[in-house]
Every structure is written in structure tokens, then in C-alpha cells.
């Protein structure tokens, strides 16, 4: 297992290099001149422009620019944005917001999704099953933007239950955006759990558990749920990385100063160093949580071995 994890971690290096280069190239290819935009209506003095272009290596060819960027990165230098702010500072300041948002979303996704799925799966075609089926279809069909605005309007403005913008109210500020961010995955988790539970209820080993005279509770929890939740847990694990990426839209709509919001602003201002730094970090999280899931999978299912 140790060797497997080590090999997987080594594999992340080429992936990160490839991903960061792709992003770097895309920012490079963006039309427009970020330096000229800095001055707003009044054009910057030619000497200032030349100085900035030189500082940020903007006149080098793509590959040279990228090589210089990676060279700095290997020394722990994520670069600075055009206002002279270290990208690393932006990340360390904004990452906690995104982590909180993702944590709230995962909590919603896991708790509500699994409970709804289990209840639906245990009594297939019952009232709860149909309720879960219909509501998850609705949630999946509606775009996240619509969901965000509707929830802001209903829960925030009409009912006044939650703040709809900013992070001034601590954890409460994250409830509504967390729910919106989680919505699609939540519906998927509910469906996945339902199918998995329903399938396992018919498994031969569940029949054996009944034949052993185990109490109903033990049959359900120990012999049905444990097996049913293996695919669900692995999905949720892999989804952590996806949600951090999905936070771009949610953070923008709810005005949360997280890394998603930062990357959104940076793309508009063509802040190459910020975009590449943050997106590469997101890619790393994605790969990391997928590795965690694969390791977890072997822990949950003894038939899986990575040796």
C-alpha cells in the first residue's frame, strides 16, 4: 500500500506540470493587454509599461515565460500580481473561505444525500422513494445559477433566514452558498445511495444475515449499509475536488472572498500568475482527493488490494 501511494504521488508531478502549462498557455493566448488595462482611461507612461513588461517577462516567448515561472515556483515563489501583491498571500488569505464553503457543501451532500438515499432505497417505490426521485430530478435539471438566485431571493430576502452575500456572519454566511454548491451532487448522492441500497437489500449475504436471526437493525446497518455506502463514500471523496472548482460560480454569486472568486477576478484582469497558481492548486486538490478515495476504497472493501 505504501508503495502504491508513493507511486501515485510521484505521478501527480507530471500531471501538475502538464496542467499548469496548459493554463499558462491559455492565459498567454488571451486577447488584450493586461498592462494597458491597468492604467484605466489614462495611458501609462511608456517607460512604466516597459518596466512592467520586463518585470513580468511579458515579452518573452511562451516557453521561456513558463520556464521562468516554474523556476520561481520551485523556490517557493508563486509570483506577484500586477499590483505587486504576492500570489501566495492571496491564496493563504482566501483558501480558508473556500475550504469552509466546501466543507459545508460536503456536509450537506453527505448527510442529506445519504439519509434521503437510504430511506428511499429501503422502501423502494414508497412515498419517500418517489419524493427523492422527483426532487432530485428537479435539482439536477435546474442550472446552479438559477438555484443560487432563487435561494437568495426566497431564503434570504423573502424569509430573511440567511445572509445572501459576504462572510460577515461566520458559519451562517456559508449555509446558503454551501447548499447551492452541494445541490447537484446532493441529488446524485441520494440517487446513488438509493440504487446501491436497493440492490444490496436483495443481495444473498443480506438473506444470510436474516437467516442467521440477526436483529433487523443489524441486518440493515451492518450488512446492507456498509456495502451500499462504498460507492457513495468514494463518490463524495472525489467530489471534494470538483466542488472546490465549482466554487467559482457560487463564490461569485454570493460574493465570498475565496479562491474561486479570486480566480474569476484574475481571469478578467489577465493576472496570469494568479490564475495559474490557483488553478494548479485546484488540480492538486482534485488529484489528492482522488488518491485519498482510492486508498479509502481498499480500506472499505477488503477485496481491493494495491500490491
Amino acid at each position, binding site marked *: 500500500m505504501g508503495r502504491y501511494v508513493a507511486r501515485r504521488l510521484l505521478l501527480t508531478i507530471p500531471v501538475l506540470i502538464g496542467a499548469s502549462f496548459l493554463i499558462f498557455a491559455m492565459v498567454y493566448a488571451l486577447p488584450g493587454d493586461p498592462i494597458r488595462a491597468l492604467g484605466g482611461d489614462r495611458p501609462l507612461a511608456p517607460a512604466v509599461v516597459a518596466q512592467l513588461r520586463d518585470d513580468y517577462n511579458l515579452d518573452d516567448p511562451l516557453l521561456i515565460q513558463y520556464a521562468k515561472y516554474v523556476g520561481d515556483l520551485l523556490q517557493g515563489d508563486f509570483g506577484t500580481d500586477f499590483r505587486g501583491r504576492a500570489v501566495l498571500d492571496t491564496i493563504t488569505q482566501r483558501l480558508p473561505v473556500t475550504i469552509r464553503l466546501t466543507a459545508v457543501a460536503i456536509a450537506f451532500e453527505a448527510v442529506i444525500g445519504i439519509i434521503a438515499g437510504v430511506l428511499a432505497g429501503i422502501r423502494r417505490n414508497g412515498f419517500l422513494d418517489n419524493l427523492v426521485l422527483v426532487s432530485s430530478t428537479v435539482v439536477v435539471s435546474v442550472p446552479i445559477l438559477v438555484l443560487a438566485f432563487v435561494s437568495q431571493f426566497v431564503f434570504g430576502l423573502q424569509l430573511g433566514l440567511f445572509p445572501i452575500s459576504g462572510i460577515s456572519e461566520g458559519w451562517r454566511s456559508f449555509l446558503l452558498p454551501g447548499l447551492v454548491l452541494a445541490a447537484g451532487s446532493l441529488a446524485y448522492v441520494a440517487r446513488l445511495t438509493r440504487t446501491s441500497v436497493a440492490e444490496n437489500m*436483495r*443481495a*444473498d*449475504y443480506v*438473506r*444470510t*444475515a*436474516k*437467516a*442467521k*436471526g*440477526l*436483529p*433487523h437493525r*443489524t441486518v440493515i446497518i451492518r*450488512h446492507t449499509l*456498509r*456495502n451500499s455506502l*462504498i460507492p457513495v463514500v468514494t463518490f463524495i471523496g472525489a467530489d471534494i475536488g470538483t466542488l472546490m472548482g465549482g466554487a467559482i460560480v457560487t463564490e461569485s454569486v454570493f460574493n465570498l472572498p475565496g479562491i474561486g472568486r479570486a480566480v474569476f477576478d484574475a481571469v478578467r484582469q489577465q493576472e496570469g500568475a494568479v490564475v495559474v497558481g490557483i488553478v494548479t492548486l485546484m488540480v492538486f486538490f482534485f488529484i489528492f482527493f482522488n488518491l485519498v478515495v482510492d486508498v479509502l476504497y481498499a480500506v*472499505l*472493501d*477488503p*477485496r481491493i488490494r494495491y500490491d
Partner: protein
Amino acid sequence: MTRPDLSKTSAPAPGAGTPVLEVDDLHVEFRTRSGVVNAVNGVSYTLAAGETLAILGESGSGKSVSAQAIMGILDSPPAVITGGGIFFEGKDLLTQPAEEQRKVRGPGISMIFQDALSSLNPVYSVGFQIGEMFRAHRGTSRKEAKKKAVELMDRVRIPGAAARVDDYPHQFSGGMRQRVMIAMAIALDPRVLIADEPTTALDVTVQAQVMDLLKDLQRDTGMGLVLITHDLGVVNEVADEVAVMYAGKIVERGTVDDVFTDAAHPYTDGLMSSIPQLEAKGGRLTPIVGQPPNLAAIPSGCPFHPRCSRRRIGAEAAPGRDCAADVPPLRLVVPGREAACHYSEEVLGV
């Protein structure tokens, strides 16, 4: 704790023990969207301590469904027990609350299944799954239960039991897995063990070992054994009594020697003729013509009549014994032998 009375069963003879299990006119149907399937249509039998009753029949004859009904593990819906009684040590399980029924499963009646790999939970060690019997029914501690599991694995002759108790089902061979199932089933010294095709998934040499093990365990504990199978060879070797099922009913019942020597029902007769015989090497086997009945539309009269070469319909039939119209009851034909055929005497040649 009540232990089986071993003195009574030290020399088990067919029918010598007291009845531990009595199934009376059991009816089970499956209510599906496409209609009602009559899987079990009035099955009755008794099983004495130390006795082995083989229930013989082809797929869909209702043999497994009746066993699952006894265990109370039918999937309902769609399965519904629509009539009859299941008496364990004199008490009708069907009239008892679910919790009482549950307490019988394991210490009273237990069951092993055909496919041990899918019947064992893949994510728990075999020791844990065997030990669960003690933990659930006796409140034994986890540590103690594991010790008991090792003892049981020794008892079912799994080599190196202490070293293998923490292994998972997929790490065992087919025969060893079935032994794990058996260890689990006999953990609490049940009075009745139902074995649903216990050797069908195993190869022949392993089959014999598993059957020997079951016989030895039965001799040691005096439990009654219901052996569900379609393997005539296994029946011949280990069973005392045999009940042949067709379309959810018992069509013939008697001692194995009697039934195998001379069948009283044309269906049993057909089964016997389909066994390859060593002395008739090179000869053709005689299959039973036609298809097993559709349980959603069981033929009128005798359910076997469309496939029966001896059927008598209309003018050929004796009054009240028209094979296509009158249902033949299971009746005593000769002492110790019951059959559900209007013309059993002719089949037997008595």
C-alpha cells in the same frame, strides 16, 4: 439453554426421533405486476430429530421457496405466505411475532445456501461472520465470539483455523467457503438445518467431503436435516426420506430405498430414468418430455399431465380420475409411500 437430547439420537433411525419440524399445507405465492405466481401449493411434511429429508425437484418446483418460507426470509413483497402452518417444536412460527421468529433462526432452525461466495458478506472476516451468531443470540463479547469461531472452523475441518479466522470470504476456496457457511449455521446447535443445494456449486470430490461433514455433524448433534437438491446421487447417499416436488406440490414421498427402487409417480419415474446408468453405457438417456410448468398458469387437474405418458383424459379416464380435470391428492399408495397420482398403483405395478 436447551441442548438437543443426544441420548435419544445416538443411533438415529428413520422416523425414530420426535418431530421437530412440521410443515402443514404451506402455500406461498408471488404477487408481481404481471400476475400471481403460485410457487408453493400445499406442501406438508414432518422432520424428526436426526432424520434427513431430501426434497427433490427441478428448478421452479418450489423447493427453495418453501425452505425460505420456513426460515422467514422470503422477500415480501412480492412473496406472501397465503396459508398453512410451520410448526417448530410444536409452535406455529407463522402466528408468532416477528421477534419470536427471529429468535428461532440460528438456535432453532438454520440454513445454508448454494453459493457460499455470494452468501457471505465480502467485507467482513469469516471469523466475524461466524462470531455474529454468538454475539446476536447470546450476547457474547467480540473476543469470546472470535474464539468460538475458531473452534467452529476446527469443527468443520478448516485447516489452520486459528490463522484463517481473520481472512475474508474471497480468500477461501469454494469448498472451504461452504464449510464456513456450515460453521455459521451449526454455531448455536440448531435442531433443524436446511441445506439448500449445498454442494451444487462445488466440484465432485469436494461435494462428497461437504456431504460427509454434514452427515458427521448430524450424527454428533442429532439435528434434523432438510436437504434441498436436484442431485439424485446425493439423495441416494445421505437421505432417509425423500419428498419429490413438482409445481409447488409434493407428488411423491417415501423412504429413499423405496422411491429409488420403484417410483409411484410418473414424474419420479421420469427423473429416475434420466439418471445415466453405468451398465447402460452408450445407451440414450430418457428425458422427461416438455417444459416445467409455468407457475403463473399451472395446468388444471394433475399439474404433470401435459408431460405424462400415462395420462388418461376424458373417456379413457376412470370416473373422478380425469388427469386433466381432477387434481390428484397426495394419498397413501402402499404402506410408507404416498403419491399424488390417480394411477399410482399402475405406475408401481402392484
